[in-house]
């Protein structure tokens, strides 16, 4: 029989074997139905559609946000903010800059959007510095919601919701600052936050471990749930994998987009007088873990949590507040039926 595009030619156990073995004979070939070909169909469909990813980077100026993005995606996704005049150096308010790129790897196309927040934490008075960011995130949810409740809606609703927010913690070595705590507390409720310790090459290994432990304690004490959130673990296997990650956050990262010769190989790193820090060497820093988490293993999970949990929470809140205020979206189910009865 003509084979469809099936990844492995393994003849799968007969569907009928659920009901017990068929009586003798080499019937194995003809028991193959082909249900598992749907995996290949899904894969093809996904490759054709392409993917989207929206990452936001938040942190004070000079912590290496742009460099880290460039290191993660091995290309110039963010332009470093090297400003011309001193006047432009300190923005009066926090700006939100979003730049998109189309990248492709082995046939997989992705639209990557990096949302930068210059000016965060740079003012003298940083109260309410999270507000523009919260507003931006909620605006993206709002745009998606509006498109979703349209009558004539697009086939594929463009997804501009922020999937992941990387928060850069300055490497003080002591503990979190009130600004960090406040920001993470508020934003962990609306978006997946991945805290990282920036410029980790200024900390020794002991200082780093101490700092991380302190941070984890403070996060726990303040009830801040960073990604991967405990409550969204699906099963025991998930929990095991995520526990290992939770023991390591925040990742201590070093970013670099320059290559140097080390032991005969060209590696990304930072060259100093006392040695070369290899970015992708897990003995030096934890960049590789961050990259694996964000890109290689948990990217789909991050997007799922954004769409099925954060977005749904926003939607519930939004539709409920219209309920009490002016419009009455809650009435739809009963309203729907009442319209029929009337």
């Amino acid at each position, binding site marked *: *029989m003509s084979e469809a595009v099936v990844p492995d030619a393994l003849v799968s156990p007969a569907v009928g074997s659920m009901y017990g073995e068929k009586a003798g004979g080499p019937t194995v070939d003809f028991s193959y139905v082909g249900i598992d070909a749907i995996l290949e169909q899904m894969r093809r469909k996904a490759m054709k559609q392409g993917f989207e990813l929206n990452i936001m980077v938040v942190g004070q100026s000079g912590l290496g946000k742009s460099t880290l993005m460039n290191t993660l995606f091995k290309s110039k*996704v963010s332009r470093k903010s090297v400003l011309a005049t001193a006047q432009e150096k300190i923005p009066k308010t926090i700006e939100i800059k979003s730049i998109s790129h*189309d990248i492709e790897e082995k046939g*997989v196309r992705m639209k990557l959007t990096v949302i930068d927040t210059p000016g965060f934490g740079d003012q003298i008075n940083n109260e309410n510095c999270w507000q523009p960011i919260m507003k931006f995130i909620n605006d993206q949810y709002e745009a998606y919601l509006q498109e979703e409740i349209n009558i004539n809606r697009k086939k594929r609703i463009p997804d501009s919701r922020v999937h992941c927010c990387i928060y850069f913690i300055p490497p003080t070595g002591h503990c979190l600052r009130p600004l960090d705590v406040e920001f993470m507390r508020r934003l962990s409720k609306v978006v997946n936050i991945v805290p990282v310790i920036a410029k980790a090459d200024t900390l020794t290994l002991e200082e780093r471990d101490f700092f991380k432990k302190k941070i984890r304690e403070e996060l726990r004490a303040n009830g801040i749930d960073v990604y991967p959130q405990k409550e969204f673990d699906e099963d025991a296997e998930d929990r095991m994998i995520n526990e290992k990650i939770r023991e390591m956050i925040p990742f201590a990262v070093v970013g670099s987009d320059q290559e140097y010769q080390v032991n005969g190989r060209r590696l990304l790193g930072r060259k100093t007088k006392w040695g070369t820090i290899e970015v992708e060497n897990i003995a030096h820093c934890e960049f590789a873990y961050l990259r694996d988490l964000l890109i290689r293993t948990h990217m789909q*999970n991050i997007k799922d949590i954004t769409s099925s949990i954060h977005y749904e929470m926003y939607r519930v809140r939004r539709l409920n507040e219209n309920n009490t205020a002016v419009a009455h979206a809650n*009435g739809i189910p009963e309203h729907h039926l009442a319209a029929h009865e009337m």
Partner: protein
Amino acid sequence: MASSDVARHPDKGVRPLSLAGHVGFDSLPDQLVNKSICQGFCFNILCIGETGIGKSTLMDTLFNTNFENFESSHFEPQVKLRAQTYDLQESNVRLRLTVVNTVGFGDQMNKQESYQPVVDYIDRQFESYLQEELKIKRSLHNYHDSRVHACLYFISPSGHSLKSLDLVTMKKLDSKVNIIPVIAKADTISKSELHKFKIKIMSELVSNGVQIYQFPLDDETVAKVNTTMNGHLPFAVVGSTEEVSVGNKMVKARQYPWGVVQVENENHCDFVKLREMLICVNMEDLREQTHTRHYELYRRCKLEEMGFKDTDPECKPVSLQQTYEAKRQEFLVELQKREDEMRQMFVQRVKEKEAELKDAERELQGRFEQLKRLHADEKAALEEKKRMFEDDQSSFSKRRAAAQLLQAQSLTANGKKDKDRKK
């Protein structure tokens, strides 16, 4: 979890970038597939065809299992639908399959309304999905999708042309579901007749404007095989769950005195083509078409019917909330009116009752007065009698007293007389 179509060429504002090394997001499709494996898949097939045409047998043969089904009678008064759900598993893929069969289709004397229960069923599934989507607290990811993904329409192998019942039914369903027509019991038609039959059927469908499901041609990997298959529609199938030994193998087949019809032999029938198209190549596309085309159409019609519009008469975009609010006001006004009516009726009834009671009260009062008067009269009469009696009594006692006095006087007088005589 929608991702937009990433254009092959850069759209404005998005510049393509080349990567200097291996980043690793090529594992994204794998991550997506793994998630789907954990979640499991859902597929719903609707089989429409006359009783006894071989719907259940074909399902059994397609999915290689024995779905418990029993023969239905030919005497159903109306067309009904029977849905059964099964959990199948093949390697690591779990499929929740729902097979919906029509019972009694084509058996009635008057077949005018035969298509209606089917249309109603399909609409009901769309409706419950729409309800779930419109809820405030919804769980779309855990929702068991019961919308019909594929409809196998069984054409009886007359060899001539489609019946008018077939045309009418397919016309009603073509905008609601993906229709895949199949010629059932194809072992009763010879090869040349079959060829003519297929051409006739396709031309009738085209001339009547029935849009059956076309296998998609936009993906290069499957475009070629899909094009070939599109040319073989409708598939002539034979179903069988019995095994016959042919050569040194056991195959699914039907044994006749004149030969053996092998189900999986492409020279004998198109069963393998059907299985490949339906399951191996296009299952995902069927699901997607159902969701993006048929369901969206239903949703649009339903919402417009309820009076929601995207733009109001001045062509300004009207948000759904505004429309809801307008509807809610209407509804409340209606409610208020009904409440007022009911209140009025209630007040009316109360007044009537009060009047009744007042009348009764007055009547009672009148009677009471009457009785009182009667009583007073009698009392007066009695008083009169009592007075007379007392008068009598007093006059009697006076007379008695007078008589006694007289008697006493007479006695003393007699005594004195005696005394006087004695002297």
